[in-house]
């Protein structure tokens, strides 16, 4: 099913990139029509600093109750959290080692409301804040804005968490081995496929936490893929067992997270914090259970 068939071809985007170039792109010519992921994404490549990014919707969507727009930018560009216009999170971080991987972007899900026509401005200030120290770096400005995505159809995919998580995995797949990617896809589906209509209050799932988990797996390449869970806080946790009665669990947040180690036979429980770039904060022997 193509986006044009879903009526999203009326959406256009225009970017002013550092005053050096403008582009106007019809999304319908850029979408991946083979994609079955229901989200609509835009972004750019190269070391660009958009001063404005204007997303316009010309007319109402037909048959679509709402849409999701994701802002993407190079993961190699230092960035910080900013608040998007819809209140959703715009996220980026300085991770130089990602740049070597080439194809990685960070995503910003933005839910735009009911399908009335409208324009949404991503201000220069917001872009600059998001891009942090990359401000003013206009080299390679010929690299254009790219847009891709599909329409979010609530009736078909009631659970946005799973859509976002799988989309995020696809952006970050360059960091992961095929085996890690496959396992994470299965685990995301198991964790999130049920939707948000369960009998128990379900937490808002943190893509930031997922991002940190992915980076952790990429950096340390544990010999055994961990078991995954989602905490009440919405953060992802990964655990490695050591025999049947000992376990180390890491809960991932923005710059690292917390760890808990339990050894039933030794009757010990320890906990603490760790940072994303080092395992040093995790006490021995628990640390070895991750990499062993």
């Amino acid at each position, binding site marked *: 099913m193509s986006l044009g068939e879903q009526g999203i071809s009326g959406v256009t985007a225009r970017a002013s990139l550092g005053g050096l170039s403008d582009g106007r792109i019809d999304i319908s010519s850029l979408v991946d029509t083979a994609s079955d992921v229901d989200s609509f994404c835009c972004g750019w490549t190269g070391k660009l600093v958009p001063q404005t990014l204007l997303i316009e919707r010309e007319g109402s969507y037909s048959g679509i109750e709402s849409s999701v727009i994701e802002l993407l930018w190079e993961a190699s560009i230092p960035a910080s959290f900013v608040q998007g216009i819809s209140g959703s999170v715009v996220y980026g971080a300085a991770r130089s080692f990602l740049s070597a991987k080439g194809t990685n972007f960070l995503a910003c899900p933005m839910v735009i409301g009911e399908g009335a026509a409208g324009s949404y401005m991503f201000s220069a200030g917001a872009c600059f804040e998001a891009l942090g120290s990359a401000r003013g770096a206009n080299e390679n400005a010929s690299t254009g804005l790219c847009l891709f995505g599909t329409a979010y159809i609530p009736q078909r995919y009631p659970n946005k968490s799973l859509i976002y998580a799988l989309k995020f995995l696809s952006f970050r797949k360059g960091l992961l081995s095929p085996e890690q990617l496959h*396992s994470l896809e*299965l*685990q995301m*589906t*198991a*964790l*999130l*496929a*049920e939707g948000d209509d*369960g*009998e*128990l209050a*379900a*937490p808002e*799932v943190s893509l930031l936490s997922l991002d940190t988990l992915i980076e952790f797996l990429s950096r340390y390449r544990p010999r055994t*893929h*961990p*078991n*995954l*869970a*989602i*905490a*009440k806080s919405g953060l992802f*946790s990964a*655990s490695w*067992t050591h025999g049947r*009665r*000992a*376990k180390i*669990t890491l809960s991932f947040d923005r710059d690292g997270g917390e760890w*808990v180690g*339990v050894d*039933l036979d030794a*009757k010990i*429980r320890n*906990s603490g914090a760790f940072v994303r770039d080092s395992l040093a904060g995790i006490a021995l022997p628990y640390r070895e259970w991750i990499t062993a």
Partner: protein
Amino acid sequence: MKGDLIPRTDHVALHCQPKTGLEYNGVGIPVGITKDAFRADDDGISSNWVEYDGGNFATVCLCLASVRHARKSHGVATINVGELIDVALDGGKEASAIHDPIELQRPNPGHSLIVGLGAADHEILDVLALTADVAPFTEDSIAQSKAIFGR
């Protein structure tokens, strides 16, 4: 009988769901729980007595699935009562499991409560989670649940 202590040799079972502390392995099968799987309220932590009325894992799955919608992605965590008591004691708490049959719209005669522990006892619950054996619901119980809840 309501309030009876459940013997140390018996087990209690928890209905665990994906976004509330159920851990999945690399092929998407539920294999463990975290402390978030223990849902505590003022009365205690809700559970079901596995061996109630001669029961076993299959019967407790049917019982749990009759009172709350059970799906393939859900899990049942079983915990030995003696180990529960010992883990709590090691953490400085006196805990027990008591029979707490429910006779409301959806009767649950094997319902039990873990008492003496609350959500604030997260250090003990971290340890207790590791004692749990976790398995998916049986096919029969999922089919029964679907028939009851229609989803």
